[in-house]
């Protein structure tokens, strides 16, 4: 296996395309219903993974590429949605939230890993969980709520209340993301988590 320590642009292209594909495929996997009745789709898990594993710059390219492919008419969003129309929907705020959430998640993960390089155990789990939480919940919800307020004329409180139903599912996703990042760090020791 080749080392992934150096990341020139052609090599990056492959990872960017792969992770865009991961986000797309997570939209094909049927929704999983949690025991307490909250449906979750996996697409935002893909966003968290991209941020944690690729770092901010390539996470930006990855989610940007995915959104461009969607805007050009490929039905890559969950439920086979696509086209420019999805950017006019009340949930469009989340799409912008994906882009910036992945970047924030990446920045946070890099900061953690620079302070504790080579962490594999609890430290890595906590770093990935917190990064997913900040990028995948705080930032994503901020833009999602902003979108709801603008498109549906809801007040900030109303929009926030409408989002609360998704918090439990998204917390589970943060945990799953953390475990996945740890498995990758263990299964592929050459994968550098502290790279920009």
């Amino acid at each position, binding site marked *: 296996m080749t080392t992934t320590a150096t990341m020139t642009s052609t*090599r990056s292209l*492959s990872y960017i395309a792969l992770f865009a594909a991961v986000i797309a*495929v997570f939209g094909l996997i049927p929704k999983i219903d949690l025991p307490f009745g909250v449906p979750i789709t996996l697409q935002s898990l893909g966003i968290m993974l991209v941020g944690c594993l690729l770092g901010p710059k390539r996470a930006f390219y990855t989610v940007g590429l995915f959104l461009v492919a969607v805007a050009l008419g490929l039905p890559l969003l969950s439920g086979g949605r696509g086209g420019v129309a999805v950017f006019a*929907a009340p949930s469009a705020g989340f799409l912008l939230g994906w882009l910036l959430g992945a970047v924030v998640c990446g920045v946070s993960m890099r900061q953690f890993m620079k302070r504790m390089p080579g962490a594999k155990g609890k430290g890595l789990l906590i770093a990935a969980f917190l990064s997913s939480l900040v990028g995948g919940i705080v930032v994503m919800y901020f833009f999602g709520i902003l979108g709801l307020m603008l*498109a549906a004329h809801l007040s900030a409180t109303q929009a926030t209340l409408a989002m609360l139903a998704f918090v439990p599912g998204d917390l589970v996703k943060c945990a799953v993301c953390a475990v*996945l990042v740890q498995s990758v760090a263990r*299964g*592929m020791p050459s994968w550098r988590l502290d790279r920009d």
Partner: protein
Amino acid sequence: MRSLYSTRRTWLHGVPAWTKLVALSLAGTVLMLTAEVRGIAIAAAAVLALFASLGPAGWRQWRMLRGLLIASGLIAGFHWAMGNPAIGLVSALRIMAAAMLALMLTITTRFDDLLTVLETILSPLRRLGLPVGRIALAIGLTLRFAENFYAQWQRLDDAHRARTGRSGGLRLLAPLAIRALQTAERVADALAARLGG
């Protein structure tokens, strides 16, 4: 992976992609600036008539609008319950009209044409180091990876089912992630060998 483009030709297929995009952004701006019920209702009726003029090519993509219709209904109902039916009606009609216009663009414009327009719009960003010319290659790679990735998922799921009799679910994510990364490394090597760098 099938694009949402319709091969059944309509009058809108012949209009250049640029013209359609400019018209779409102008119409979107007008919709955003219109705040009274009568104006939005007239605009929405006009958009509906335009959409209907596409014939079966448009109605075939009806499922794309179903979710939005439900969301718009919820928004209108919510504002109705809060004693503000006008705001709800305006928001719901605006969302539906904008989405229908956007869907018309998607149905009647070929993927390649949109990509050309996009590359032209983004070309100034080349100076900032954005690899604009590689968008087409990256999208192609993404679709190929998605297919490969989905096939790997099903293979792992079958293997898990054969051992345990149940579907693997989330347990498969870790082996899947590692396999996908290994595939990406091989592709990266191949790309680096052919394109350099």
